[in-house]
């Protein structure tokens, strides 16, 4: 047995390069691409190609399990590194804000209209039912008194919930309340997106339900002649918040539609394409709800003039519509 095995010689000649690649990968995985020197960056593609070809040769000539497992793992790792994403988190965020998000929203006008139909349908239904007979309010809300904003309250009390006295604010309670609402709404938005997978039916139900909740409350104020003031109170942040809820519903419908009616593609491919777009919209909803919470926590409680409230509501609406639907030049790749 004086001469060496062919497979052993094969390994002897190449293992230094394999280990060098291993070292570079470990460094990159632990500290990111920036840790690598120029020389290492230049060596990487060559070492990667060599490892891949070593693997296919080793599979056919070597019976050393350890070598094959090692190369298999090395090639997998380097494949994911070489063909992996190279952008930083900041770049991805900018890309999301400047391009991906508005593009995803403006491509889904139909789904948005459908979601708006369900939401405002629920709203209108509850509103007109309650105006005819206030007993409906209790049917919708059960025994939840909504901080006394119910049909039994006096006009003065209802008016007092819309405006904030100077001496009441400043305890930070408003901030706590709006962050609680943000949590709640953002969770509902993500839920509406996720439920879309069940062909969008639960999403539709969730939209109608939220519409009914707000519509019935609206009826209470309208009935007492406070419709104009309540709209200002609701819409200063509501434009952003309700828009976000409608968009999250739209994201759910996109997925539901893609799963139920895949068209010419396979169901998997269709779900996949829709999922990417819908997830972008859902992520955007979280951003919108953060904006809404800020408007709610500060704007609504500090601004007590109806005119300014309407002005803020109007300008947020114009801002969102412009941001989403004004066509923009595709950025140079």
């Amino acid at each position, binding site marked *: 047995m004086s001469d060496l095995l062919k497979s052993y010689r094969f390994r002897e000649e190449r293992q230094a390069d394999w280990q060098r690649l291993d070292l570079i990968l470990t460094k990159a995985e632990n500290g990111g*691409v920036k840790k690598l020197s120029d020389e290492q960056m230049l060596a990487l593609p060559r070492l990667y190609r060599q490892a891949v070809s070593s693997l296919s040769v080793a599979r056919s000539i070597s019976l*050393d399990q350890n070598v094959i497992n090692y190369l298999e793992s090395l090639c997998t790792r380097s494949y994911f590194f070489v063909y992996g994403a190279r952008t930083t988190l900041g770049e991805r965020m900018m890309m999301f804000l400047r391009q991906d998000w508005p593009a995803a929203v403006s491509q889904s006008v139909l789904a948005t209209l459908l979601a708006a139909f369900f939401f405002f349908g629920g709203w209108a239904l509850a509103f007109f039912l309650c105006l005819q007979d206030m007993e409906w309010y209790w049917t919708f809300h059960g025994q939840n008194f909504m901080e006394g904003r119910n049909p039994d309250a006096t006009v003065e009390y209802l008016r007092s919930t819309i405006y904030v006295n100077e001496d009441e604010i400043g305890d930070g309670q408003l901030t706590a309340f709006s*962050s609680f609402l943000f949590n709640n709404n953002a969770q509902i938005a993500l839920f509406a997106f996720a439920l879309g997978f069940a062909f969008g039916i639960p999403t539709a139900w969730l939209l109608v339900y939220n519409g009914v909740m707000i519509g019935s409350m609206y009826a209470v104020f309208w009935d007492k002649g406070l419709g104009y003031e309540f709209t200002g109170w609701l819409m200063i942040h509501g434009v952003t918040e309700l828009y976000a809820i409608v968009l999250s519903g739209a994201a759910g419908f996109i997925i539901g539609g893609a799963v139920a009616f895949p068209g010419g593609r396979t169901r998997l491919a269709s779900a996949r394409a829709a999922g990417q777009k819908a997830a972008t919209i859902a992520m955007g909803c979280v951003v919108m709800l953060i904006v809404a919470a800020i408007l709610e926590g500060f704007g609504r409680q500090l601004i007590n003039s109806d005119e300014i409230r309407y002005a803020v509501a109007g300008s947020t609406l114009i801002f969102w519509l412009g941001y989403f639907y004004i066509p923009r030049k595709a950025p140079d790749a």
Partner: protein
Amino acid sequence: MSAAPPVKPVDTSRRPGLSMEAAVQRRARLAEEMRVSKMVRRLVTPEGAAIQLRLGSASERAGAFLIDIAIQWAIVIATFVGLGMVIGAMSPGSANVAFAFWLVFFFFVRNFYYIFFEIGQRAATPGKRVLGLRVAARDGGRLTANSVLARNFIREIEIGLPFQFALMGGDQFGAWMGLFGLLWSGVFLLFPIFNKDKMRVGDLIAGTWVIKAPKAKLMQDITSAAARPETGSRFAFTTAQTDAYGIHELHVLEDVLRQSTPEIKAQVASRIRAKINWTRTEGETDLAFLEAYYAALRRRLEQRILLGDRKTDKYDVR
């Protein structure tokens, strides 16, 4: 990507010289190999080379998830306790603001923990990293940020929904609704068990899957120890002796040499000696014998492979 061709078990039960017990064992081994090969997917790189990816099993995924959940809870509880201690020293106003920020933080831990880690270079949460798992795009392409978002937002119906229904109770009607909802949402929770790619609903929507990509270490080649001149002259095996075993036995022997105790090595050595009629010479250690036989067997089997003849195991007599 397509499934790797499954290993076809060869019916050898009626071969001469194969006992009932051995046949049962062999069949069990082939069935196990077949089961493992069902979890392997081939990925052809742009260079034209095939890489074999092994999918993470449902139990590995569940294990990783439990670790991640534990970490999330640890973060939430630790920050909450920390907040509780700091809040005593604050005015009511700033305490409320601090609590408000904690609530938002809670939301982000709950929903963005997975996204934060999976969007990174390793495409794996700490739990997945511990178990050697990572997320990959199903078409072998780049794992996009949108995919990571999609697969993690869907988690809400896979975990959150069954959990909410399980907590739903109240009157008779509510309990029945809860049970019905639990069954319905259980479909989402148990989805990975019922498809061959072990995809969650989130994976399906995002076009991803979770693969097992553990780090392996390159160890010494065993034949390098056997290549020393003094061992070469001592151990000269005949062709008949090196034809006694096949590739499966070679791999078992490699495992024995790499990781088992001296007692097991001694047992294996005496069984091989009996099988190939090797008489033990003066001063011959078990380890040296096993290493030399491993080298000789591998040489013989590799030679046969070059001629297109894979002897899969010792029953494979051609």
